[in-house]
């Protein structure tokens, strides 16, 4: 035995792996799979498309531009003045109930939150509440890391500095009486942002943590005074701040401003009536050919209104069916490999 072994010492192992005989599934693109497959996919797509389209159609959206471009437009005076907290208002009428829950967005266009240097201009450690970065912000925040007299800026960087600072209140006029619509600013940011990514330093009162720092140059109030009505909604965990800091991927974007509080008259959404949005107009967008708008929208299981997806599914589904017919014709006509 030993001798035999040594005689064939170099004989390769006879395993399925070494002999490349591993059992395998070898699918091929046969007509029996491809054509029915296309038909099935096509039908499924059409089905999904219809469902999406129906859902999307049921969603109500109301968009109101308040940039103030034209002379007659509501905020044209504010857009041309440089007054701080310039007031203007927008009126709109709802004929039917705007089904709740209703979300109140502001939208900006031609605004490049996704510009590389803009996006990098923040200090994650600082925003995480690390006090050592309060005194020495990361150089990525430059030129918004120190002010003219070398005081560190907190929160530093372009993103924070350029925080959206228009404010809105919504009132409803019912039979001459003006009623303020309750707006809910809680829970408009991602849970992860609110609870994990952004933190205030554990210093009470919060103001003390900001000793020796200055507020961002373009801010009216320091970070710890962003919400005077709710002490816990200040600093880096202020919901509006968080929404702004979640920078948009595309130059036209909308951000959640408030929710319509589903209480009282607004249990089911915004009832029919005349509404007024009072705007505190601060944010300059006309210099860079931008536009500002407010948006009211409700949502479905698939989110906001989205016509594209439904139409795309319908079109692709139909194309699949057409393609399957084409393939069937080709197959019937040429039918490889019977020709040989």
């Amino acid at each position, binding site marked *: 035995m030993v001798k035999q072994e040594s005689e064939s010492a*170099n*004989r390769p192992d006879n395993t399925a792996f*070494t*002999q*490349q*005989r591993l*059992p395998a599934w*070898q699918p*091929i*693109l*046969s*007509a029996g799979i*491809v054509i029915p497959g296309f038909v099935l*996919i096509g039908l499924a797509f059409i089905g999904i498309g219809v469902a999406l389209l129906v859902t999307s159609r049921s969603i109500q959206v109301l968009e109101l531009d308040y940039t103030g471009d034209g002379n007659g437009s509501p905020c044209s005076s504010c857009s041309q003045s440089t007054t701080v907290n310039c007031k203007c208002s927008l009126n709109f009428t709802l004929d039917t109930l705007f089904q709740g*829950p209703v*979300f109140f967005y502001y939208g900006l266009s031609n605004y*490049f939150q*996704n510009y*590389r*240097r*803009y*996006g990098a*201009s923040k200090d994650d450690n600082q925003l995480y509440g690390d006090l050592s970065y309060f005194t020495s912000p990361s150089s990525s925040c430059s*030129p918004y890391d120190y002010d003219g007299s070398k005081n560190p800026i907190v929160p530093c960087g372009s993103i924070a500095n350029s925080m959206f600072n228009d404010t809105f209140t919504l009132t409803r006029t019912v039979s001459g009486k003006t009623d303020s619509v309750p707006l809910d600013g809680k829970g*408009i*940011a991602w*849970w*992860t942002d609110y609870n*994990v*990514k952004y933190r205030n330093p554990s210093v009470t009162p919060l103001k003390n943590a900001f000793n020796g720092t200055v507020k961002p140059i373009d801010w009216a109030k320091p970070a710890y005074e962003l919400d005077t009505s709710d002490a816990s909604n200040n600093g880096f965990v202020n919901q509006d701040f968080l*929404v702004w800091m*979640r920078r*948009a*991927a*595309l*130059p*036209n*974007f*909308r*951000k959640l401003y408030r929710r319509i509080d589903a209480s009282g008259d607004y249990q089911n959404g915004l009832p029919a009536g005349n509404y007024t949005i009072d705007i505190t107009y601060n944010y300059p967008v006309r*210099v*860079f*050919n931008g536009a500002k708008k407010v948006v009211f929208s409700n*949502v*479905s*299981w*698939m*989110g*906001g209104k*989205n016509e594209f*997806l439904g139409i*795309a599914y319908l079109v*692709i589904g139909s194309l699949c069916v057409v393609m399957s017919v*084409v*393939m069937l014709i*080709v*197959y019937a006509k040429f039918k*490889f*490999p019977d020709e*040989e």
Partner: protein
Amino acid sequence: TFNLSFRYANNAIKTSKYNIFTFLPLNLFEQFKRLANAYFLFLLILELIPQISSLSWITTGFALIVVLSITGVKDAIDDINRHKCDRQVNNRKVDVLMDGQLKNEKWMNVQVGDIVKLGNNEFEASERNSVQKETNLKVKQALTVTGELGDNIEALAAFNGEVRCEPPNNRLDKFKGTLTVNGERYALDNDKVLLRGCTLRNTEWCFGLVIFGGPDSKLIQNSGKSMFKRTSIDHLTNILVLCIFGFLASMCSILTIGNAIWERNEGSVFTMFLPREPGIDAPLASFLIFWSYVIVLNALIPSSLYVSVEFIRLGNSFFIDWDRKMYYPKNDTPAQARTTTLNEELGQIKYIFSDKTGTLTQNIMTFNKCSINGKAYGEQVDFSWNNLADPKYNFHDHSLVEMVRSGNPETQEFFRLLSLCHTVMPEEKKEGELSYQAQSPDEGALVTAARNFGFVFRSRTPETITVVEMGRQVIYELLAILDFNNMRKRMSVIVRSPEGKLTLYCKGADTVIFERLHPSCNKLMEVTTDHLNEYAGDGLRTLVLAYKDLNENYMIDWKQRHHEASVAMEGREEKLDELYEEIEKDMMLLGATAVEDKLQDGVPQTIEQLAKADIKIWVLTGDKQETAENIGYSCNMLREEMKDVFVVSANTAEGVKEDPHPQGARPPLWEPLHYGVLTDDLTPIPSSLHHQAFALEKNLRLELLRTACMCQTVICCRVTPLQKAQVVQLVKKYKQAVTLAIGDGANDVSMIKAAHIGVGISGQEGMQAVLSSDYSFAQFRYLQRLLLVHGRWSYIRMCKFLGYFFYKNFTFTLVQFWYAFFCGFSAQTVYDEWFITFYNMVYTALPVLGMCLFDQDVNDRWSLQHPELYAPGQKNQYFNKKAFVSYLIHGCYCSLIIFFIPWASMNDAVRNDGKDIVSHPSFAFLLQTCLLAVVHTQLCVDTYYWTAVNHFFVLLSTIGYFAISVTMYSNGMFYVFTSSFPLIGAARNTLNQPIVWLTIFLTFLLCILPVVAIRFIFIQLRPTINDKVRYKMRTEELPGPAPRHLLRRRSTRSGYAFSHSQGYGDLVTSRKFLMKRSTKRAPLFTQTDSSIFQNQPQHYRTIAEEAEESQSHKL
């Protein structure tokens, strides 16, 4: 000690490159000399400049470190092996003469000027001046002055001389020097030196003086200069990488221009939110953007491509090593991929250049059949149908044995003739242990046959031949040898038996002998002719035997005239021929022998298969035309229906030029010739070392090539090793085709090295061909498996890999390109940095590796069943510039879909709780997921062969992606590395949205479905051969192994069993030649002309030419 003062190189060799301390710096330096790595270093530096850096340096650093360490580990292992080999070689023992006695010393301690003793079959440690005689085909002969010293240790120790020679060089065929002994100068030339790496044969020992040691020796001087072979795919890839560089530059330029425009229109007014950095104005910013985009789009340059390609090739090489169907159990030799970088080229072979002896044939002649006095003997059962039959099959016909033993006179005379009429040299080292040295294997076979049948040729002197006839010793007096030559095609001996009977024994080609028979033999001749035809039909080499009793008086007269003729100054040849003609007539027919030049198993089938795969096979052999043609017929390269045998042979350049037009007026459009035999039959002028290859001269090269390529089969005869290489290079250069050379001996080395791929037949005596080859195995027939199965698979796998690799990187990168138009050309990456880091190295690495290691369109049996599957590889159809452009377009399409479908569906989208979803991290995550879904599905569509491993890899990568993403975006990672993972929550907040999944689904189907539809339609409209076979494989059972029909040639074409070169009858009878017999040394042949070398290339093998690594491997 005197020699030491000159500080000659000692005999220690060093082939290793590094030691422990120099490894890191030297290896890194080496690696950064490669363009891809240098480029990466450049990127890394760019990334460290904050104004430019659009990506953290970790991204590139990670890839670079992975690539460097993989290559580094491989280099380290290689170098450790070299160290081991060096140590082994340096520690080998040799006997050195020191202080008057022999001492066993390590090779590395041998010094120039030492006298060493070598035994038979030992390797040469260093180059030396041979002191003792060594005799063989490449004869090395000592100077008489040193030869006389013999093995007298004292004399050798006292020997005092001075050698002056040329400085160390790498010319193997030249040596110049002088030896001065006692004031006398003796010339030393190449015949007097043994080279390192040679093997000593046919002498028990030799003493030598070390002339060059270690690095100075010709072997080492020659090594390291071996040409680095690259595959055509390598070349193509390099060109494509250059194209990609151009593509990258133009993309970056477009984006730079875009940035300049954007900066003017938008950026300048956007500065209130994003002030410019101090000192950087708009033009400079745009310029910097160019470099930032070079970084962002760097994935276009296939960084990990080279590493992955090496890896896949290595894997496929292992499959070759592991293949049991290429393992030869008889001498325990598995196939071996000695070069692991050429695999896919095996699938593209267009021309095979094969040696004959030892490659197609076993170089074993067996006495197979005979016809004695009209009765045919020999095994009637033909085993050739049986693949497993013992190739050592011997003569099995017992009736012949009985005929001999019963004393049948014709039969006895038949074997007596065989034992007498030849020029074989016997060697009897010990009583009873007899071995023959024959000029041609045919002769050896015949004499051995006679020996086995009881007519043992024992010894010879110039005047006598001693034969043991059925146990009785008989001494014949040898009167004359009428030697063989090409014109005569026969040889005869005239002997006188102890009884005084004078007989002429003659053997020769049938046509020649039949003309010279006595009329009384006519009837017997007819019967024998029938037998001969039968033998010829079996491809056997035949000889006809005849004898003639001579009259004593006539003989005396003839002998006298013979003597006169042989000393004649003029017309000696003619006079001798006349005399021979006169005596060789009216002979009595004895019978015929049939010797089989045994082909290796399965050679005809293999050649047939390869021919079906449209591979052109050229046989390049040193043999004469007749032998080569004969082999051509027996291995099915030439067939009877091939009518236009086309022979180019001429002695001069003009002759060659004229010769291709044998019919005179051929139309300009030559009809395809059926086959051609190219011969370069030159007048042999032994003194001229430079065999001028007229046909290979410049002005005739193209003509030769044109002619040869019109032939189905080309056989080149009488080619020297150098010419073999020239032919290969000719085809390589002008046909732009991939060539493969296969051979087994030293004379094939140049050809093996010249061809794109060299294959060595291993397991035989010599290792030299193997050592310089890229692949080796034991049997020619494994070639079909190597090419049609492994080569084809490797090629397909490599093409699939390259195609897929380019596709996936294009898709990946172009998405970034589209995003540039939406982010102000700011070099913002659309993906997360970690995704960029892991994309090639982690997320997509395994599935493609799985595909490229295991994929097979059809399994091996179907591959062999349909050799035509090989053709696409030869035509380079699977990966070429066109295919590359199609991958580019495909990648472009997919990237458009991957970017714009999510872009459209995410425009103004919100989550179903009203919150944000179009933030940069979630958009990035969505695109990443789409991209991976698309490239993985594309891989699935491309994979033909789904083993468990493939399933596992695809699943692992998909699950792994989500697992890694979720982990990286988890709270924990953020707590630990706050600023490294800023995309926290992206996965969680995105994946729970139906709209995200619907978008992913839409995107990837939109990428995949068109591919499926187009492929399906193409299969229907223009099915490729692969499609057909794959379909067939699905619907039909594989037909059983093709019936191996008997390869019988209905032919009267016959080769006769001679070596086809002038015999050395003259030497046999010359006293001078046999003088040394008495000293009981090995039998000696003096220097003979090159014809022996041509016929018996396997006897002398110098291993002096191979590259260092193969050398160390062997050692």
